């Protein structure tokens, strides 16, 4: 390619850029397909998609919105971890610090909390969309199942998340959840041991907080991230997003 003295040329037509993106600007079919196949993050999507896939009135973008909220939640969550200490003496004060003593702390906490509420809602809306368009049917039945599991994971992530501030809501929610798990029959054997393992003892306290914290910041997000990956990959393998049969 001939060198032209434009800023774009300076930025994109050099050895470094070319070592990262080995294709030209995607303006023809070949480089457009290379843009997708040569990129780890994009190649989970196919080079070409059906026009029905990009019809906003069909998907309403609900699944993608859920995914974006998950990304925002991951980033804000990691930032919040720098100030939050999962101890029953400090957790509540850390919340107050985030609000009053940390620059933009309250914005991050708000993003994280409202994003979580939004994710629960949008995962649910997404499920409704898939059902009402018949998208759960063969050959997508396995992916539908993964979706249901992801909905439940979202609920568990929310549950373990709102326990962490150690306010009244948190304490009584843990108490209720622990006792609810304790009613699994037979109560004296299964229920009691499940309650003991969830609370990490007999009374709701420090052990319970650290258990919910570990679940919230690593175990559940990791499982969710893996399942989201499988969910996306299966969309492709099952023939793309559902669409009407063609005549």
């Amino acid at each position, binding site marked *: 390619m001939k060198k032209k003295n434009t800023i774009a040329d300076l930025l994109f037509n050099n050895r470094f850029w070319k070592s990262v993106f080995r294709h030209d600007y995607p303006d023809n079919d070949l480089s457009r397909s290379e843009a997708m196949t040569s990129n780890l993050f994009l190649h989970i999507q196919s080079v070409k998609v059906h026009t029905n896939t990009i019809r906003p009135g069909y998907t309403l973008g609900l699944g993608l919105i859920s995914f974006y909220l998950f990304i925002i939640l991951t980033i804000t969550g990691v930032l919040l971890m720098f100030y939050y200490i999962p101890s029953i003496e400090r957790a509540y004060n850390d919340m107050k610090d985030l609000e009053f003593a940390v620059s933009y702390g309250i914005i991050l906490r708000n993003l994280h909390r409202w994003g979580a509420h939004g994710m629960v809602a949008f995962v649910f809306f997404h499920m409704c969309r898939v059902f009402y368009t018949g998208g759960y049917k063969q050959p997508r039945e396995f992916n539908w199942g993964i979706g249901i599991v992801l909905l439940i994971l979202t609920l568990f992530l929310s549950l373990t998340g709102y326990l962490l501030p150690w306010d009244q809501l948190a304490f*009584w929610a843990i*108490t*209720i959840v*622990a*006792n*609810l798990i304790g009613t699994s029959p037979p109560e004296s054997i299964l229920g009691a*041991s499940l309650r*003991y*393992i969830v609370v*990490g*003892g*007999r*009374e709701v*306290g420090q*052990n319970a907080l650290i258990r919910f914290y570990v679940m919230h910041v690593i175990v559940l997000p990791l499982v969710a991230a893996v399942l989201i990956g499988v969910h996306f990959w299966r969309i492709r393998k099952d023939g793309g997003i559902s669409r009407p049969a063609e005549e």
Partner: protein
Amino acid sequence: MSEKDVKGDVNNITRRKFFLFFGWFGILSSLAGSAFGAVRFMFPNVLYEPSTTFKIGKPSDYPPNTVTFVQDNRLFVVRGKDGIEGIRIISSICTHMGCTPKWVEAKNQWECPCHGSVFNIKGEVIAGPAPKPLPWYKTTVAPDGKIVVDSKNYVKPDYQIKV
């Protein structure tokens, strides 16, 4: 190929099956062992929780014909109610989901704010989803005159310490 080799082949198959069985047995049993260890690990053996037997002050701290909530130990001290003169101790942990019911003097009953369970003065469930009555705790008087509560030992509603 000699006859011996053919015979050897037959033996090899049984040997192969034998090793296959032990291979799978080894893999599965080590997986099961690791899983058991991981689950067992999650059950703490030592708990740093308050004792289930504790003192809650002298009988004279609780005036006759009252129900007093003791915050720190999550129980009610009942004195002189329901025709029983002495002091009795009842749990303040709702048997439904563990919330704290409130004593309503006007109606002579406990009402739980979480899911609406109501307990009468005997601790029995008269409304709401609670599956069991509130338990009464075994109570004694220590030599120093203080009330000792054993919250792991349940007694009948008429169990009392005379004042």
